[in-house]
């Protein structure tokens, strides 16, 4: 039976190698992408690129300052709308909803919303904000991104609140503290790290979204003057430059991609480092 045994060992080794190759390819793609973007983007990166407005069509040079500010504006506003809604609804699910019927449907809705293609979310924001106001605007873009952020923040908040041991709630209740205060002042702070990290990751994802902004934030070659005006955002500008026929814009698209990528990577890496020591004492 040694022959059978040797064959089994060979199959084992072969499959080991094959799956290792899969993993290497999968992880390698990331490094290939990062490396290529860094290579193509770095040469075009300059102070002027970060601080100037786009040059008129046909002229070379110019920058993406308005897109960076616009992205911060839209994503920031989306966070202001989406994070509190997600966190508070998450508080409901974890602290009050339990296995009730409302909680079931809210979870179902959040999971459904989370799976809705971002372009469809954009369509919704278009119908909700753009059509009634009869104009593209930063606000409508923020609403679209907020709808993307909410379900992620919601489920993340619920998850981290559930990790807070029941004994912590008991301890606070037993001190004669009303329940709402226990939730706000003891339970939420205990889960704070996880909740904030989740919100940050959700916003990083929103910052990279393009599809829902095409017909909401719309884009702009100048500074957006108000939240009710169209506004340029980094991914949207990147997209417009990438599909344009101009070489100089292609060059700028790579540089914009590098900035966007660095931002997303930084947030992800920071989130991971920050989350590592899971909130002390919580067994």
């Amino acid at each position, binding site marked *: 039976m040694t022959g059978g045994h040797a064959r089994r060992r060979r199959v084992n080794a072969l499959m080991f190698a094959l799956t290792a190759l899969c*993993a290497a390819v999968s992880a390698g793609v990331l490094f290939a992408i990062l490396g290529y973007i860094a290579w193509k983007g770095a040469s075009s990166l300059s102070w002027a690129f970060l601080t100037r407005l786009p040059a008129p069509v046909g002229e070379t040079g110019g920058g993406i300052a308005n897109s960076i500010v616009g992205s911060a504006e839209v994503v920031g506003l989306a966070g202001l709308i989406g994070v509190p809604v997600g966190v508070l609804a998450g508080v409901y699910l974890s602290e009050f909803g339990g296995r009730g019927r409302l909680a079931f449907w809210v979870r179902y809705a959040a999971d459904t919303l989370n799976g*809705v293609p971002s372009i469809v979310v954009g369509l919704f924001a278009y119908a909700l904000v753009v059509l009634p106001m009869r104009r593209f605007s930063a606000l409508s873009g923020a609403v679209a991104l907020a709808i993307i952020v909410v379900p992620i923040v919601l489920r993340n908040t619920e998850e981290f609140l559930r990790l807070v041991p029941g004994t912590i709630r008991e301890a606070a209740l037993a001190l004669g503290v009303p329940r709402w205060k226990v939730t706000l002042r003891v339970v939420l702070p205990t889960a704070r790290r996880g909740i904030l990290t989740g919100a940050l990751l959700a916003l990083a994802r929103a910052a990279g979204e393009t599809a829902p902004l095409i017909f909401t934030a719309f884009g702009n070659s100048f500074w957006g003057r108000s939240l009710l005006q169209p506004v340029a955002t980094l991914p949207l500008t990147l997209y417009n430059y990438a599909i344009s026929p101009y070489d100089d814009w292609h060059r700028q698209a790579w540089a914009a991609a590098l900035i966007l990528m660095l931002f997303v990577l930084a947030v992800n890496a920071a989130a991971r480092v920050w989350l590592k020591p899971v909130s002390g004492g919580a067994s």
Partner: protein
Amino acid sequence: MATAAAPDRIPSVARGAAAVPGPRERAGDRLFRLGVAAFALLILALTAALAVMLAVESRGTWRSFGFSFLWSTEWDPIGGKFGALPFLYGTLVSSALALLIAVPLGVGSAIFLAELAPRRVSDAVSFAIELLAAVPSVILGLMGIFLLVPWVRAAEPFLTRWLGWLPLFRGAPYGIGLLAAGLILSLMILPYIAAISREVLLTVPRPLKEGLYALGATRWEVVRGVSLPYARSGILGAIFLALGRALGETMAVTMVIGNTPQISASLFSPAYTMSAVIANELAEASSPDHLSALVAIGLTLFGLTVVVNGLARLLIRRLEARG
């Protein structure tokens, strides 16, 4: 009897059904509970509103075309002819192609990471793969336009030479088209398949595996005999979740698929997807009919992803219930 009796078991406090409602609840607590419940309701309402909006805004299309909207192939906004089949076709074929590439690669990676690799290698590689999921799709699209499409264009004649007996691999080598779209989509969904499958595989109970090891099985035999069968529904769930992503993905696909509403047997030919046509035409849709048709496509896409994602969650939950 045992003198040191185990501590009395008390159910965990303060999380649960309606938590002591009625007159005993303090006003502040009641206000707070109703307040957060309102936010929970808001999410429910938002989701319902999304579905209702899609249905209402697209009713014109359903009224004039009925379900034949989904079967007809002509898309002529100026002539007022709207048929969604080319988009449905492009979405389904590019997603299927993406699954064809990403499933073996992703599940293979997951097996390696969960079962075979040393812990530190596994953690590092998993981190890299999860970061890949965080790359914005517009950046993948950019890579697609300037890197992938030229490669595909160069590779297509070779594919034709060897596989040209299949209609799939015939036609002019544009580079842009279904093949490029499928490839870029596979990159987008690979991390989901790999990461979730790995997690699922890590939940396989040790004693189950040790039983087979004790009989002298090799690691691969344990993977095939115990881990994969145990994790099957979870991995299937991961695949469906990835499919949901692929169906709805917009930017990367729009940038490489060629945006031509046609149905061709060849993977080389340009095509169009549902999400791409919404992205490209909505901002310029001037006639109500055109707008309504685009929303109808959105509704179709929404329905498709809700079903696929629902199935995915069901499959993953089934595994959890067993675990």
